[in-house]
């Protein structure tokens, strides 16, 4: 198998799948952001549809439930004029003996043009991209702990629109980095786009081993990690972490890592606060901050549709270029 970052590119370096932000060039990531920017203006119009994916069939293939992410992909596909089919395949379907390969072969018989895939296994989107018929684009909507590249790109868009540029920003990502595909995708995108420093903050139990190898500096205390930050990204804390001896309690986590106005004061005065949602108020962030002036959390949601439109349009166009070349 080849490296994920190569599988997602055509021979001339254009996007044909979107599996990970890792290994993509600064130009390509910037092109995604620019394209998304252009779609934001179309969304402000009364007629929001553009015909880029007219006649194409997009299948939302969700092996893990996620109403929010699935809905934004559905809206994005519709605004690109594609036909969309939602398939919620609970994990139980595959445990009944049907393998992921069986599922794929069945779906291919429907002649779809794009799969938007969410799966609990790291590497699942990459696996599917290597197995599907040529011409079918795969968009990773989250694979295990590995990557959630559209979420990361909408976060990049949020930073760029509020801070004008990503270059030079000091960004801290706080909380459960170990289980976070969002954090991994953010770290790669931030480094490629020229962030001055990427920090991760959390207890040792929630920071993955050798995280520095990914290009993030580890901090264990908010007092150290938030100092002089331009951007603070809070991650959602899953309740099951308490059962797995990773944390003693939500209250102790909030005491140490919960973002309060007091802690936020350590960052730069114009720092922005982000969260991929859904928020656990009082666990990772207090309401005063989540709803405060520095919070850009609600803006993030509306940019999500534009970013997903951008990568869907770019990947479909990459597939067509490759098909024409052959």
């Amino acid at each position: 198998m080849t490296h994920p970052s190569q599988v997602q590119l055509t021979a001339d370096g254009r996007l044909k799948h979107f599996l990970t932000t890792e290994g993509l060039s600064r130009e390509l990531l910037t092109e995604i952001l620019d394209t998304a920017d252009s779609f934001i203006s179309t969304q402000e119009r009364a007629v929001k549809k553009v015909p880029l994916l007219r006649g194409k069939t997009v299948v939302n293939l969700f092996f893990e439930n996620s109403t929010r992410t699935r809905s934004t992909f559905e809206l994005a596909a519709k605004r690109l004029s594609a036909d969309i089919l939602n398939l919620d395949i609970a994990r139980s379907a595959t445990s009944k003996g049907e393998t992921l390969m069986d599922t794929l072969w069945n779906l291919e018989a429907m002649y779809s043009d794009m799969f938007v895939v969410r799966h609990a296994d790291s590497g699942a989107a990459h696996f599917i991209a290597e197995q599907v018929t040529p011409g079918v684009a795969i968009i990773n909507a989250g694979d295990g702990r590995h990557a959630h590249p559209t979420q990361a790109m909408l976060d990049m868009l949020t930073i760029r629109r509020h801070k004008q540029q990503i270059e030079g920003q000091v960004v801290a990502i706080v909380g459960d980095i170990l289980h976070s595909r969002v954090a991994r995708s953010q770290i790669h995108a931030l480094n490629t786009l020229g962030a001055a420093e990427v920090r991760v903050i959390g207890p040792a139990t929630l920071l993955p081993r050798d995280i520095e190898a990914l290009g993030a500096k580890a901090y264990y205390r908010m007092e150290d990690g938030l100092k002089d930050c331009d951007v603070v990204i809070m991650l959602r804390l899953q309740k099951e972490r308490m059962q797995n001896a990773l944390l003693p309690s939500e209250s102790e986590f909030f005491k140490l890592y919960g973002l309060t106005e007091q802690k936020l004061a350590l960052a730069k005065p114009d720092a922005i606060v982000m969260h991929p949602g859904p928020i656990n108020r009082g666990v990772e962030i207090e309401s005063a901050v989540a709803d405060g002036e520095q919070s850009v959390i609600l803006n993030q949601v509306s940019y999500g549709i534009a970013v997903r439109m951008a990568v869907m349009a770019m990947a479909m166009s990459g597939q067509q270029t490759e098909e024409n070349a052959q």
Partner: protein
Amino acid sequence: MSSFVIRQARLIDPSQQRDEITDIRIAGGKIDAIGADLSGSNSIDASGLWLTPGFIDLGGHLAEPGYTQKGSIASETKAASRSGFTHVCALPDSKPVADSAAVIQLIREKAEQAGSAEVLPLGALTQGLEGEQLANMFSLSEAGCVAMSNARQPIKDSYVLRRLLEYAATYDLPVFLTANDAALAAGGCMHEGPVSTRLGLAGIPETAETAALAQIILLAEQVPVRLHISQISCARSIAMLRNARSRGHDITADVPLANLLYTQDTVHGYNSQFHVQPPLRSEDDRQALLAAVAAGELAISSNHRPHEIAAKKAPFADAEAGLSMYDYFLPLAMSLLGEQLDISALVRSLTQLPAQVLGRQANLALGSAANLVLIDPQQSLTARRSELLSRGGNISCRGEVLTGQATAVMRNGHWIYQAD
């Protein structure tokens, strides 16, 4: 009595400190003479070839009984003989588990019918390999088991571990243990380190092996048991074993060939072939394991585990663990020869050391059983699934050009493998 002479081979037998070009004569299934210009009723010219004792594998999965979609005793022992193995220890995690004399008898009969590498069954240490109740070790030994093992299944707790060591020691039965703390390894599918972090795969920390090994060593030091540690993967484990030996505890160990060849870096790109147990660790670990083989401290085992193609066609964590090693074991092992490892140390790790673990002989001394391998060190071939003798298509080296082939393998005076 008919006799057979192999002429002018380079005889490499570390146990006899031999490395010379000579003739060797086989008669009555034994080494009958060694020296220049021997006469016999038949002979072959083996100039340019290497001649070594037959290899002994301390642990492979033969897939039978129970997993015939993956392989059979006939197919897997044939594949083993292709790489020079005359004897293979079959791990007990078949279905049913090798915890009864009936299963052992079945395995031995199938192996005998196949007429290839001889199978030396490992009996289950605990019933059903469940780690709780001791298996009928003495009866299993009587049925032909050469040692007791729990494969990679966990022993329930330190109490059971202590008692099974004591029980096995009572009857002088060798015990093979893997050092694997099930709680620390839980959910993991590769080495915990920079690659697992990058790929978002759950890691198996080094301490899953070393913490378990420390416990095993401390318990075993209180019991006069013949203990062998199967499938070690960490540099730290070598130091711990060395330390135990320096205190007078003769604990042996083996390393799977894959852990000498590959590291965590092979997993980049989610290549599910490299989902193996124990996991492939860091380059430092690999180098330390190689050095220990060179120093004669570790035997090399195959950890052969054949799978049907579908078992690996899944996202990395969901793919079944294991590599099909037998077909290309010999050239892959020979690819390690170089500055650190010489041919004598490699042969020792495949013959003398595993033989000592089992209390057997593996040599080309006068009067010894004629178990031997003729190797063409120059011959190359391309690794192809279509040419496998094993039923397991899950090889690590597909499409690679590999150098070094067994041209013929003899067990007890009979050829069990001859290359085309």
